[in-house]
């Protein structure tokens, strides 16, 4: 390098040093983009795939939930979930919408409400009551509007009970 500096002169050396990051960035960005186009599902370009809809809902990942639903998961079909507090460590079958409300995954709730057509009003009402019970007012309001219900919910105690048992409006 020193030999080059003597031969090139200060100005040329500085030009080359200024050009180096520009060229490297150009080459690096191009290589990365070609890789992205060729392997869009490489770990660098996609979030790690959740194994189940329950996991995706639990992580609050809207796009992942959407992709699982697109892949064929039925948003109305109960899923197996387990949580140390909400289900007392037991495996429980629960509707995805109720699970999202229980976990306060408020960004997933709207997706589950509308994917592949509107959700059944009865389920929305049940979810609205659950949201109200755990103090998730935003979700409760959205679900109540969606289900067009104005009646109060039945009194229950304990979040685990809310998931396991029906919480239909009075």
């Amino acid at each position, binding site marked *: 390098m020193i030999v080059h500096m003597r031969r090139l002169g200060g100005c040329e050396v500085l*030009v080359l040093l200024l*050009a180096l*990051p520009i060229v490297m960035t*150009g080459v690096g960005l191009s290589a990365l*983009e070609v890789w992205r186009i060729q392997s869009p599902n490489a770990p*660098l370009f996609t979030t790690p795939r959740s194994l189940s809809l329950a996991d995706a809902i639990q992580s609050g990942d809207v*796009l992942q939930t959407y992709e699982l639903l697109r892949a064929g998961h039925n948003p109305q079909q109960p899923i197996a979930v387990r949580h140390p507090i909400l289900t007392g460590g037991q495996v429980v079958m629960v509707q995805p919408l109720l699970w999202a409300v229980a976990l306060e995954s408020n960004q997933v709730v709207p997706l589950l409400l509308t994917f592949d057509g509107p959700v059944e009003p009865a389920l929305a009402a049940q979810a609205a009551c659950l949201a109200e019970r755990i103090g998730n007012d935003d979700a409760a309001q959205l679900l109540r509007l969606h289900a067009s219900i104005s009646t109060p919910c039945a009194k229950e105690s304990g979040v685990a009970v809310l998931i396991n048992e029906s919480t239909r409006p009075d």
Partner: protein
Amino acid sequence: MQLSGWWRQAALALAVSAVAVAGGARWLAGPPGVLVHVRWSESVATATRQQLEARFQLRDGEPLDRFTWRYNLVDPSIENVRALIEAPAVADTHHIERSTAAIEQSAIRTRRQQRFAHGDALILAADWFALVAVACAVSLLVLGASGRASSLVAMPRILAQRLRAVRAGAFMNAESPTAAREHPGRPGLWSTVALVACAPFIIILCRTLWHTPFPITEMVAVLEDVAEKPVAQFFDPHRAYYRPFSRVLYSVIWNAGGTVDSRLMAIRLLTIGPAVLLTVLFVQSLRPRTALEGVTAAFAVTVLTGSAGFLENLEIGMSDTMVIMAITIFTWILLNRHGGRWQTLLLAACVVTAVGFKEQGLALVPLVVGAWWTGAPGANRRLVIATAAFTVAYLTVRWIGSGTWAPFEQDVGLGFTEIDKTAAAERFGAFPYWMYLYSSTSTIANVLFAEPSRGIFRTVQAMSEGRIEPWQIIQVGSSLALTSAIAWWGLGCLRAAARHGWTQESRTLVAFVLVLSATGALSFNYSRERLGGVATVFYAITSFFAMRAVVSSAANAPRRRVTVMGVGVMLLATAWQIRSISTLEYARLHSWGNQREWFVRLPQRRLDYAHRPVYIDVMESMLEQGIDPAAPRPTRFPRWAARVIGPRR
């Protein structure tokens, strides 16, 4: 027109084939579909309704109430529409002129599916072919008119000659920038080199923006506005946000017919086009003539694209400031070249157009005045008088309409916190001018030092709390270093101007100071990075001159000093490259955020805006692009790299 010379015949053939292919594709694909509402008679059973839907080519039915459905009417021919409205089973329709059986102008167009499923793809391919054919035809005409058509045949030989010449003179004048300015050099070649160096960034940015979903939060409301309101309403000066030209342009696109996809594509191009144009014109304005200037120009492009004033204006569909930035650089090019009356008229039109797009365009007024004051060849007294008269008239009209404006239109940052606009009005409403001064200064400081952002000293706060991230150090550090270099060069420039009069360099410095001050003043109400966009263009231009001066100063320096300067220059260039990568990641993050909003906000919006049918129609028509799984997402860099590139928020 008499045809002589092969290039004329070839150009004509290309033009004819462009028209024929574009027209033929449309004929082949059939007309676009249209969204209509149909209310069925109460007596119509489900099976009957389904039969009628198939007969009238009503697809993708969506119930709006018990009897009313929204459909994609795939065949909007008068015969089919007349048969539909005359059917006894149809009680009523919406978006159809029942007297003439014609589709209303305001109805939303859908894809062309009448003859086959991918009619739009055929038209897109045909349009691209036509575009390329027209471009080739124009190039042939230009080359032919200038007597260079035959040079196409000799192109390989000319290229080889050029390359030999480049090798001989790459560093010509590198050690004397003043001499370089005076020597004709090779502006075309080194401009091309600078653009090629930036091409990967620009291409990736365009690709990202092309697939980015429009935001549901603002874009739907804007399109509802242009779908419903007459054009004259956009010129009402009582609006706090005054962007008549932008809205008229959207209105023309949205109401011109065509499918939703084609209209959204046109609006998308309004963001991508100005960003590309800005970059090309930016390099054109620098006219690099040597290797030193070519590399410095590429560096200056990185400064432009790595600045918050650039990236914050990349929001798809909301690119008014990006348009103004492109107009600004075009204006600057015109101001620095000799021209006649037409050029003066063009410059005046640039000012009016920029202001009509967004009020930040007013920054062009001091630019014109400053250029005239410093003896720019393209600025003359008539232009200054016309610009001043327009500005006075514009401000008078806006002042008259300002009676109902709130003291703060958006939340404002102060110190380490953001204050809600209502709270700010209560706190500072009686005398808001200190707050206005703070916001203006914040915007200026953000252009120069990348801090504060939105009026909040986030980096200082992070440092005081011991949670500063590498990307924050890179952003503030690179801005500090470059601004110092610009200040050093600027002082030298002013000294030279005092001795020898105005030069292009000193004129650029004056323009930067004036535009920066104007940009700050125009953001008095609230400070945002995007409001510094116009000043960012001149910050990048001055960075070109400053870096050229820094590198040139090493011409006869001792080796040790060159080594230190070399390390400094490389670090600075690397930091700005990282910032440009950060811009790309920001664009991807934005795309991901927009898509998320479609999932999260859609149900609530359907409920909240149910009483606004146009809003709902526009939103539903945009749903497909909003949830398209191909939308760009942020790269999942390793943690160390993510901390260096950094999230913006």
